[in-house]
């Protein structure tokens, strides 16, 4: 397999290969659409139009992307330390508890104070839920992949218990908390109405979208402009060299997982405070797993992640429109695309590399 390790120009490694993998993933998705008996090109057009053809479409696109930026960053930060955090789903879910406790418990305080506190609580709860697997990996050698999977399920059951038995108002049928009224102010629509007398289309987009941009910047700054980030990347790239440099990998594993969990936890800000204004069952809805696809596709770089999150936002919003226009194509088509993206950009990452290397090496001779 010497050819697989051959040197390729950076634009091939960082540009062409991911692009090729993405195209192949989309081709397979197109194939599925064909099997269903629809025209893939038409389907693509409907998705594009539905997502970016109107202000409302954009609103939804960016709302979805906000979630995916958080979960994508969570996965990426862990990747940089050589850790695979599959627990974004559970961490985001558990973080909802923090958001709801502060959002409901401190209602008597003015909202500009409550919201930052709720954000902090979301991060803390998310961080805690990732800190435990991190600690168990670093100190007890439990495999992080398995423990984070288990923690997804544990969070799932615990949250049902908490919401049903503690947050559900007496007499309400739906398993959900009461409303966090102060949080309405996060919504763009609400802001437009209250302060600018502007009627914006009804979309779930809210101020959290700015938090996502800030988070992406902070992650970039952390990883490439701080000593801690340097240590995180060193542990991930070469643990031996990190030890030589006096870095303690165990410590870095625990810290990195906590940061990763805090990022996943921010999703609760978007959903619980920004959109639903209440704590709902299963509100994460698979966004934690989308984060894996987003991180792989964005090459674990915040800029790539923001772009990949927007692409998935487009797919989610476009997919909703598509299933409306073509009832034959279920919304779950997006899940298929996610799976294909993870397969081709992750597990089969280097499938095309030997062939490309052969072409380039021949071209050089």
């Amino acid at each position: 397999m010497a050819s697989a390790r051959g040197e390729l120009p950076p634009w091939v490694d960082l540009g062409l290969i991911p692009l090729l993998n993405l195209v192949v993933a989309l081709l397979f998705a197109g194939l599925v659409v064909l099997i269903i008996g629809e025209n893939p090109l038409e389907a693509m057009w409907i998705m594009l139009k539905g997502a970016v053809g109107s202000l409302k479409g954009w609103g939804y696109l960016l709302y979805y992307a906000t979630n995916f930026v958080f979960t994508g960053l969570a996965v990426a930060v862990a990747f940089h330390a050589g850790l695979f955090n599959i627990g974004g789903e559970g961490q985001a879910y558990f973080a909802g508890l923090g958001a709801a406790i502060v959002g409901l418990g401190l209602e008597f305080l003015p909202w500009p104070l409550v919201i930052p506190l709720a954000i902090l609580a979301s991060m803390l709860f998310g961080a805690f839920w990732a800190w435990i697997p991190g600690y168990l990996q670093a100190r007890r050698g439990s495999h992080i992949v398995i423990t984070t999977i288990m923690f997804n399920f544990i969070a799932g059951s615990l949250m049902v218990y908490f919401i049903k038995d503690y947050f559900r108002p007496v007499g309400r049928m739906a398993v959900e908390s009461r409303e966090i009224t102060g949080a309405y102010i996060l919504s763009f629509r609400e802001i437009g109405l209250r302060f600018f007398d502007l009627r914006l289309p009804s979309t779930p987009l809210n101020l959290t979208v700015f938090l996502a941009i800030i988070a992406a910047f902070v992650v970039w700054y952390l990883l490439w402009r701080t000593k801690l980030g340097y240590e995180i990347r060193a542990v991930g790239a070469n643990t031996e060299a990190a030890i030589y440099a006096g870095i303690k990998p165990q410590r870095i594993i625990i810290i990195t997982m906590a940061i990763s969990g805090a990022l996943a936890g921010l999703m609760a800000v978007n959903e619980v405070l920004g959109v639903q204004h209440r704590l709902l069952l299963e509100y994460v809805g698979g966004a934690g797993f989308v984060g894996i696809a987003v991180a792989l596709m964005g090459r674990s770089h915040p800029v790539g992640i923001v772009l990949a999150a927007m692409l998935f936002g487009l797919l989610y919003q476009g997919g909703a429109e598509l299933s409306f226009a073509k009832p034959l194509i279920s919304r779950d088509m997006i899940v298929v695309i996610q799976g294909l993206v993870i397969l081709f950009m992750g597990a089969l990452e280097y499938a095309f590399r030997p062939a490309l290397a052969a072409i380039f090496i021949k071209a050089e001779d």
Partner: protein
Amino acid sequence: MTPAIELIGIDKRFGAVHANKDVTLSIAQGSIHGIIGENGAGKSTLMSILFGFYAADQGEIKVKGQPVSIKSSSDAISHGIGMVHQHFMLVDPFTVLENVVLGAEDGKLIGPALAKARQELTRLAQDYELDVDPDAIVGDLPVGLQQRVEILKALFKGAETLILDEPTGVLTPDEADHLFRILGQLRDQGKTVILITHKLREIMAITDHVSVMRRGEMVATKDTKKTSVEELAELMVGRRVLLRVEKGKAKPGEVVLDVKNLTWKDRKGTPRVDNVSFTVRSGEIVGIAGVSGNGQSEILELISGISRPTSGQIVFEGKDIGILGDPRHVREEGLAHVPEDRQHRGLIATFDASESSILGWHYDETLGKGFRLDRQAVISRCKAEMQEFDVRPADPLLTSAKFSGGNQQKIILARELERDPDLLIVGQPTRGVDIGAIEFIHKRLIALRDQGKAILLVSVELDEIRSLSDRILVMFAGKIMGERGPEANERELGLLMAGVTEDAA
């Protein structure tokens, strides 16, 4: 009599490395044939080709006079060749019996094979002193017994020729003697044994014939009885042109590093560094010579704080740094470390050069206040270092992996010297480095010495040790065999490196 094995014109390259150059070798049936040479002489590659692990680029293999094609290990096994690898190929949680029958199960169920193996093991135990409890879990056995299991595996599969790659490296002297008795009995029963080693004592003790390899070439084959340790040592090391390094006489000052009764045992309890004591003074270079794997790497790791001593002291400027066991603290005490393995330790291949150039010093306040890492400061500092050390290309943003070996080494050296350390410990400073860079690195080390710094140098290149060191320590099997001046001749050092002290030879 037809030779058991003939290798004719074997040639093998790994990229730029010419591992075997037109090697021809004939092994007599029923003999013990030693193959000796320094690290990287091509012994293991040659035997891996015979065992079907690598394919030769050119050449022919004959078994009992018949040309054969050996494309895989199973081909080799079917031609009656067995191999005991340096790193054992055992399944730890399996019993001895299960390991022995793996690949020779003789049918869909393993019951009959296990029963057969049990009988066979009893027979082999009687014939060759190869006793092992067939029901023991292999992972629980000491290394000496694990090695016996490897031999049993090969014999059970019908090996007529047995290759052993550095078999005594992991053994205690008693275990090694036992192994030699076993090998002797195997020969007496008509088996052929090929023994790869770098230890002259072993060659003299048990082989009938010995072949010497040097830099990929087969330089001589001798009857063991008609040769001497001296002759072999010379053949092994060769007469090489000594690299000229301009240097004046050392002016040693205070003791900077005082290592006292240092011992380090691995997880299995084998001492890899065994009661070692030495000092390094300011203004001198102390070289540690030896074939790799004799404890030098461990000494570097202990002094630099990567591992902690089992016992003994490492006193640096009056302070015991051994108990710190923390590379960062040790560095802050004023020690710099150029590690042996620059790819896996010295730098991070995927980082750009500027980031690799702060590895270990990255927390320094001059690179950014508090938690910040000032990228501009890092880059400009790296740029300056690159110019001073003539790194090409002088591009701090180029990925570390893309620099040549010599330039990578210069980046590391620049990083470690930048802090004006009192003691530099340096391992294999010029391994895989081009001639120009070697000269440059050597000059820098001498200059550092002349500034009055203490340097501890570990190298498997005897030339390098001789041309740089003011005092030479020779290590063998975790111990220091002796100390010599730089004027010591190669034969003398070669003997010490092979574990032979004057009185014994």
